[in-house]
């Protein structure tokens, strides 16, 4: 019989964390924002899902983020920690102050735009793929 982690009481001493769980398919990430025990694996039992984050921009060049602020507030009040990416998302949404990592990343991007990776073609061998995975 499978028991959902959210059905079990959570009064253990293991810390809880709100972090991104990668779902989706190969080369197409989609993250669930979940509350989990730190010890559990990324694909292991989840206490509650409090949102989602679509990392691929849609045809309007938007990245969609759903956040259940009411439940996030509750879990923060119960002592849950935030992972860095989730803290960055909450900063971007205005729920928390801007995360220093976002500011540093923005500064780096402005100083030097992110490099595009390219392979040089080798004579006599098949030409490189359009989007090589290095």
């Amino acid at each position, binding site marked *: 019989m499978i028991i959902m982690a959210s059905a079990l009481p959570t009064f253990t001493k293991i810390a809880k964390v709100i972090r991104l769980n990668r779902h989706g398919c190969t080369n197409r990430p989609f993250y669930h924002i979940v509350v989990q025990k730190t010890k559990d694996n990324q694909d292991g039992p989840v206490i509650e899902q409090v*949102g989602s984050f679509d990392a691929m*921009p849609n045809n309007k*060049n*938007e*990245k*969609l*983020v*759903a*956040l*259940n*602020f*009411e*439940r996030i507030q509750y879990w923060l009040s119960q002592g849950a920690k935030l992972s860095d990416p989730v803290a960055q*998302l909450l900063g*971007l*949404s*205005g729920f928390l102050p*801007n995360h220093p990592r*976002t*500011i540093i*990343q*923005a*500064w780096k*991007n*402005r100083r030097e735009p992110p490099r595009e990776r390219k392979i040089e073609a080798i004579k006599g061998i098949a030409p490189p793929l359009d989007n090589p995975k290095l």
Partner: protein
Amino acid sequence: MATRAVMFTIGKFRCFPILKNRIAKFTSSSNLLNTSTFDTGYTRDPSEVFFKENVQALLDRLTGRDYEKVFQNRKLGQRLEPPKYELLTQAEVDQVMVEMEVKLKKKLQMPPLLKEREPVTKILSKDAELQGFDNCKYVFIDISQGINDRKREVVVRDPNGVLRDASWEERQKMCQIYFPLPGRQISMPKMFEETHLQDCLDQGQYQFVLDRACAQFEPDDPDYIRVTRKTYNCIDENNKFSTLRSTRHFGPMVLHLVLCKRMDNLLFHFITSKEVKAAADLVRLFHLVWSDSSPSELDEFQLIENYIQGPAVKKPALELAWQTFLEIEKQRLEALSQQNKASN
């Protein structure tokens, strides 16, 4: 031109297939009445008038109560069930009729006439230090339970660091993605674009267009107002008022025509179909909307006469129709009185 309607199977809204031989005709039914001397729009805020109790009562009376039409089995992609027959006492029948009244009121609930909504301009924060953190915008929606969709927080962080409230289009799209309503698509269906909309109206699919617009848009959406006004004007030009009678759209259509001052076609329709009460109600509504007072005449015939002599725009046609009606009435009353004499 003969056209084939598009078949699609979303939720409730399934189009009827049009047979090849049926050609949509753009007829001008009554030559006396088709002059385009009307203004098509109005700058007045219709919600001031729409929500008044006396206006609502009049619109309700004008809509009519054809139970057969309201409760008919519409082919909307849902499973149809055969009718159930039950043996009931008079008291039980009365009880069922009371329940049916409640259901009827719900089906005939009129979608409101509102003015176009103002675009959203609220900026929550300007963070110049975040410029360049990503080259696409982030759209955040609050998925807490129990919040009305119109009050739900939807914010956008632009690549230039500005955090703002989402525009109405972004907001509706996000709410539909995470809290979908049946019959509504995420982006506007192609049917509501000008050319396709004109095709639908040429085929006479007025109720379908209005029902789908009701499901797809909010009542203060500029697209909803455009589609509904176009449909109402089309019905008015082609004198197809009976298609919307006893539906939820008749009331808003009548109020729209009164506000545009082009209710004369409708009055003509009522007079020629001998619905004196409806014609009188229409004239009362006109006075309520334009002078905010009920007229003093209690006699319905006098009321209509005064309107035709006074504020009517299409006087010749209306006078002709009214005189014809009065003569027919007189003959009918004479025949009745003769019948009474004969029986006595």
